[in-house]
């Protein structure tokens, strides 16, 4: 039940894009087509979930015991960059099918702030504990953090896919020149964010 609540909160209420504004660049950049949005969503899900597990472990096993929590930003970004690199190499070597689907999106993820943002939220001083529906300053357990990361990335995947579907449909309609592209995408995101804010009343 607790995990369900955390996951629900992460997917809908604190939606990573629409409520927290993490990962906006790829959200607007890679959402013109449903296929690429789907691939991006999958890649993000994979990277966020695993890198959060790694970051959580390093933070609690290495940084905290040595009282160097303040280095977490530096350490996390290195971990994420290396991990993404590693994933890319592994995929390239073992499955050309997956690589052709996800490969081009992986480097982009390094600078997707959702990855670093989630890692920081589940570790440092319980910064994001309220996003996990927990009291302030309370650090989540490993599995709570993992479920949260999974929920966040699924929320990302769902929203970017829905968003791309809307944008594809929108191509069929005439839009004033100055509203084309980013502006109309932002208005669409506004309406989606309004809808998602309604989930706030559920918990």
């Amino acid at each position, binding site marked *: 039940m607790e995990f369900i609540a955390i996951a629900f909160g992460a997917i809908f209420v604190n939606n990573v894009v*629409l*409520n*927290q*504004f*993490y*990962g*906006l*660049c790829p959200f*607007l950049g890679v959402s013109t087509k449903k296929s690429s949005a789907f691939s991006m969503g999958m890649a993000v899900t994979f990277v966020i979930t695993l890198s959060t597990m790694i970051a959580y472990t390093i933070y609690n096993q290495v940084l905290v015991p040595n009282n160097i929590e*303040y*280095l977490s*930003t*530096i350490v996390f*970004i*290195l971990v994420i*960059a*290396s991990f993404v690199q590693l994933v890319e190499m592994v995929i390239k070597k073992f499955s050309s099918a997956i690589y052709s689907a996800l490969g081009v999106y992986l480097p982009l993820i*390094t*600078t*997707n*702030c959702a*990855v*670093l*943002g989630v890692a*920081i*939220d589940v570790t*440092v001083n319980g*910064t*994001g504990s309220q996003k996990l529906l927990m009291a302030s300053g309370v650090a989540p357990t490993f599995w709570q953090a993992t479920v949260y990361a999974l929920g966040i990335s699924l929320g990302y995947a769902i929203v970017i896919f829905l968003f791309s579907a809307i944008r594809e449909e929108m191509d069929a309609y005439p839009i*004033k*020149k*100055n*509203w*084309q592209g*980013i*502006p*109309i*995408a*932002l*208005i669409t*995101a*506004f309406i989606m*964010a*309004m809808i*998602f*804010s309604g989930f706030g009343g559920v918990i």
Partner: protein
Amino acid sequence: MARKQKSLSDVFTAGFFKQNPVFVQFLGMCPTLAVTGSVESAIGMGAGVIFVLVLSNLIISLIRSAVPREVRIPIYIVVIASFVTMLEMLMNAFVPDLAAQLGTFLSLIVVNCLILGRAEAFASKNGPVRSVLDGLGMGIGFTGGITLLAFFRELLGKGSITIWGDFALNLIPSDFQISILVAPAGAFLVFGILVSQINKIKLRRAEQGEVA
């Protein structure tokens, strides 16, 4: 390669309008939308970005010849992350309220595409003076952009602009506030409208240019 180098003043002012990171390049969108609920936090975020951008551009420009191509990105990231960490600690010590307002987005300056982008696109190819000027110009352009956005959101959403508790501008009676604008969703709306209006101006200029 024979391209003429831009003048120093061009380097400095490029970020203001022509290549404005917020409205033209759409770089650093996360903070653009997340911290523009109030003018105060927008200015704070802008100052933070200027601090990191100028220093990282300077250092990267200084060490650019010593950095092996293969690992340049990780090295840039370490440099940037170090400055961001320092910035976090300094802000927590001296402007704690602002640091609390910015929250995780202070740490996320690390992955602000603007900073890594300028490091890669400019500082790694130019000397320290030009790099600092570029960082400063881009930083000011970024700050101006998000402050403009925050101005509209706070003014229409809260009816008044308050900066550091001392300076308050009360313009709109509370009955006419549109509080959705300061909520997360409102960021998309205001930003979308602003971009569309800037596009409109650009399009008109382009047409006039063709005629002329």
